[in-house]
């Protein structure tokens, strides 16, 4: 592998700028003549806007302009879109209500923008915002799923009767019902998958600049996918044409899904920069992040699993209500359907599955993809059911899982997915060994003698990553293809630039992508640069989410590299008067196999650009591009086991041990992979123990700051014990599967299984706070 090649834990190239305070995030950028935007947001969850009076605000010091939703309408700026069409079981399309970037008539969640003040300074904009008078007529609000589907509930959008966006099904209902009728045992669970706030540490921000003579916009924004942002902004919102809009996503401080989407603030900043003729900057504060970043999860589910007399699973039936908030965010419709129900087979042979998903509007922040996006919810359903079944059937939970594991690949599940490869026994065995599963009964007994409740919980997750084969997702309703593109430029002096449509906001691409080049050419990674996050530099890209950057983005780079290498070999062969087939690449040299003749990469590159002596008919230069469209999803999988001790007196749960055994296929940089797992586990554990976005009955978000929303802190978490088992992904030449979401997908079920095991009561909802655990123990 070499010290910097694939498989080496290379220290990150990008770190130096971050540890010295020289990172460049959107809010760090200042433009000449820049103004500042502050949004006026609805204090009501549901209301009609009777009037907006901006006259006093306009007179305030430093104010450049005050703009309202009605002006957006007047300028024919388009409404926000949802890019994935879902068809209901009755054949009708999804019932999407209009979402204007600033509301002209009706607000449907607390925090929805109704107007914006543009001023010379941020403080002046804030001061003037206080002087904007908005007259609302309050309407009854629907704060959660139960309220939304109640008979006679207030209606949010005229397009969606009963607040239902779609009622979608997957699988064979008749066959599944028959399996339940014939079952020896049935296990059932009601599950609330709690609503979460992504909370990347960098709040969203945008700077827009309009160049009037060129009719050209530049947008600096906190995006995971700047090209998708440009496409959506130009194709749907009537703000700028694609060739007249440059989108730059510089250093971005975390995303976790929340920075995939195109939000009202970016649209308004662009539009306003033209209106006021000055650059406009908006930087959200944390409260705005809570009130406007797309939230995650928020499902109510009833799930049942049928078993035969030998404890083999014969059927799974799931009915889920998903809360999509007040409006349909960019990919919201796909999360509780194709990213959720298609993973309900878990790691198990389940011959019959039927799932129904009903998505509803509520007067809350829009809900969309958050780390794992649908797959954590699916994994939680399946792994809580397996644990519950083991207890009900009085068998060991590890044995019940092993009895039902899929062992033959490829495996077609009844819910679309075709698992290509895996070894679920290997990962569970590795995790059981790491935590000394066999020794648990003795540890539990010892803890009991000390007055403590000890529990152990398993979670065997699988996810579909490497998102996604374009043709497949197109047939399922996606509005975009999910390939990736790359370009490899070898400069005349032999240094290399990799242009990629993937975007790094913490994942370490500037290191891992260089490792591929080091591996292929044997050059040091210091000679390679990664260029990303700028639509003017990189031709196109679909961005980073769904654990896709290695499986799809890096494979695109590999495809471009193969073209570069093929041309470089032709040039070297010509220069060395050898056969192209005899050229091998080693340590940055093009060598004629079996001889001492060689040409260093810089000499080959120079020859390509001087073009003095190239093979007849060859174009000068050494630069190639590639688009790569995956043939299948990838299927990272693994086993997490958590051992917890619960204090019956206080209800407080304490980690004894948390082990993870993951199969991500080939690891490019194990150090970075483990960092991704740590972070994912923290978010999964955060969901299980701490985090919850809570609304009151009137639709006010009660947890709208870090004072109220329990983010995991260092002393809430244990150190993790990680290991890897490996089956190489057959779907891509690198054999990689993706690692970014696994922790968040698998961890929460392991924690809840452990606590419910400890306390001997299976009825426990997330987050399992000491209060809830105490009540579960004492009633």
């Amino acid at each position, binding site marked *: 592998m070499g010290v910097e090649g694939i498989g080496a834990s290379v*220290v990150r190239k990008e770190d130096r700028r971050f540890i010295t305070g020289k990172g460049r995030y959107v809010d760090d950028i200042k433009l000449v003549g820049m103004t500042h935007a502050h949004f006026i947001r609805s204090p009501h969850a549901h209301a009609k806007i009777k009037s907006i009076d901006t006259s006093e605000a306009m007179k305030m010091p430093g104010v450049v302009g005050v703009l309202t939703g009605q002006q957006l309408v007047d300028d024919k700026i388009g409404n926000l879109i949802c890019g994935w069409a879902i068809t209901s079981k009755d054949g009708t399309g999804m019932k999407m209500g209009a979402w204007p970037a600033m509301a002209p008539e009706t607000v449907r969640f607390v925090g929805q923008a109704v107007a914006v003040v543009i001023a010379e300074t941020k403080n002046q904009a804030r001061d003037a915002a206080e002087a904007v008078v908005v007259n609302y007529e309050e309407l009854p609000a629907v704060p959660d799923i139960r309220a939304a589907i109640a008979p006679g509930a207030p209606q949010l959008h005229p397009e969606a009767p009963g607040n239902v966006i779609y009622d979608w099904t997957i699988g064979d209902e008749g066959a599944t019902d028959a399996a339940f009728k014939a079952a020896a045992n049935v296990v059932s669970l009601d599950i609330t998958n709690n609503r979460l706030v992504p909370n990347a540490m960098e709040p969203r921000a945008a700077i827009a600049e309009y160049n009037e003579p060129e009719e050209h916009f530049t947008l600096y924004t906190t995006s995971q996918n700047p090209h998708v942002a440009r496409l959506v902004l130009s194709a749907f919102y009537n703000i700028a044409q694609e060739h007249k809009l440059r989108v730059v996503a510089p250093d971005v401080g975390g995303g976790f899904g929340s920075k995939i989407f195109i939000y009202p603030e970016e649209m308004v900043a662009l539009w306003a920069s033209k209106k006021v003729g000055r650059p406009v900057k908006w930087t959200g504060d944390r409260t705005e992040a809570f009130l406007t970043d797309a939230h995650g999860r928020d499902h109510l589910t009833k799930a049942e699993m049928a078993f035969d007399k030998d404890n083999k699973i014969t059927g799974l039936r799931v009915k889920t209500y998903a809360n999509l908030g007040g409006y349909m965010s960019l990919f919201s419709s796909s999360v509780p359907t194709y990213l959720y129900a298609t993973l309900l087979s878990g790691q198990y042979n389940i011959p019959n599955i039927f799932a129904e998903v009903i998505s509803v509007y509520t007067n809350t922040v829009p809900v969309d993809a958050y780390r794992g996006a649908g797959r954590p919810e699916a994994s939680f359903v399946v792994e809580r059911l397996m644990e519950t079944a083991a207890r009900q059937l009085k068998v060991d939970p590890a044995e019940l899982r092993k009895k039902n594991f899929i062992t033959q690949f490829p495996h077609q599940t009844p819910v679309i997915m075709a698992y290509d490869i895996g070894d679920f026994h290997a990962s569970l065995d590795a995790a059981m060994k790491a935590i000394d599963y066999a020794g648990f009964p003795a540890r539990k007994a010892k803890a009991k003698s000390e007055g403590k409740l000890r529990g152990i919980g398993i979670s065997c997750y699988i996810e579909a990553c490497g998102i996604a084969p374009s043709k497949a997702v197109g047939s399922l309703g996606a509005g975009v293809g999910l390939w990736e593109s790359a370009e490899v430029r070898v400069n005349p002096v032999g240094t290399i630039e990799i242009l990629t449509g993937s975007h790094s906001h913490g994942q370490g691409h500037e290191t891992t992508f260089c490792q591929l080049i080091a591996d292929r050419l044997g050059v040091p990674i210091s000679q390679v640069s990664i260029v990303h996050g700028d639509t003017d530099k990189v031709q196109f890209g679909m961005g980073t989410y769904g654990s896709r950057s290695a499986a799809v983005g890096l494979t695109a780079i590999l495809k471009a590299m193969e073209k570069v290498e093929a041309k470089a070999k032709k040039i070297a062969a010509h220069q060395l008067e050898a056969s192209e087939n005899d050229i091998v690449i080693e340590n940055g040299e093009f060598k004629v196999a079996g001889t001492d003749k060689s040409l260093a990469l810089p000499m080959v590159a120079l020859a390509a650009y001087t073009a003095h002596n190239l093979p007849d008919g060859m174009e000068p230069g050494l630069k190639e591009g590639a688009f790569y469209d995956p043939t299948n999803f990838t299927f990272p999988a693994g086993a997490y086991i958590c051992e917890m001790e619960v204090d019956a007196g206080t209800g407080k749960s304490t980690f004894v041990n948390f082990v993870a055994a993951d199969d991500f296929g080939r690891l490019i940089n194990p*150090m970075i992979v483990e960092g991704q797992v740590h972070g994912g586990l923290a978010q999964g554990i955060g969901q299980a123990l701490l985090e919850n976005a809570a609304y009151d009955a009137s639709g006010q978000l009660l947890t709208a700051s870090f004072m109220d929303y329990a983010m995991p802190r260092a002393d809430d978490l244990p150190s993790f014990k990680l290991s890897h088992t490996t089956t190489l992904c057959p779907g891509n030449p690198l054999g990689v599967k993706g690692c970014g979401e696994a922790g968040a997908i698998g961890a929460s079920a392991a924690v809840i299984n452990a606590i419910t095991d400890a306390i001997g009561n299976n009825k426990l909802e997330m987050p399992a706070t000491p209060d809830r655990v105490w009540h579960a123990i004492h009633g």
Partner: protein
Amino acid sequence: MSTVKLTVNGKAVSAEVEDRTLLVHLLRDHLNLTGTHVGCDTSQCGACVVHIDGRAVKSCTVLAGQAAGSNVTTIEGIAKGDELHPMQAAFRDNHGLQCGYCTPGMIMSAIDIVHRHSGQLDEETVRHELEGNICRCTGYHNIVKAVLDAAGRMKVAQAAE
């Protein structure tokens, strides 16, 4: 408006600011020291931690005027030229950062933690002491490793001086 004079990273500086200006905004907006970040509005996240007269302080809880006459050190001021501070090096070597946004505050807090405990740290103490700094990327696992590693490095560096 007031004129605030203080020392930042060893240099005497002066800025004309509104009285309500927070130290973090003086640093970022007036002195262009954008390494100090703002991650919340309730003094919870710690992305803005700097040292005032050698003590770690959240610069979003201090008015610029309150820092007048003091000696402020930011993330930009802890390396000696090309030579990283041992805490910076330990964060890099232990993969103690991902997106980098919380990192400056983490590093400034962590240096203070090591100083206050005279380098005598264990995992539990580090985790407890980091409660004023939120990271969403790393799960803290490698941050804790980095701080423990740096405590050792700082002791060696101190002994060498």
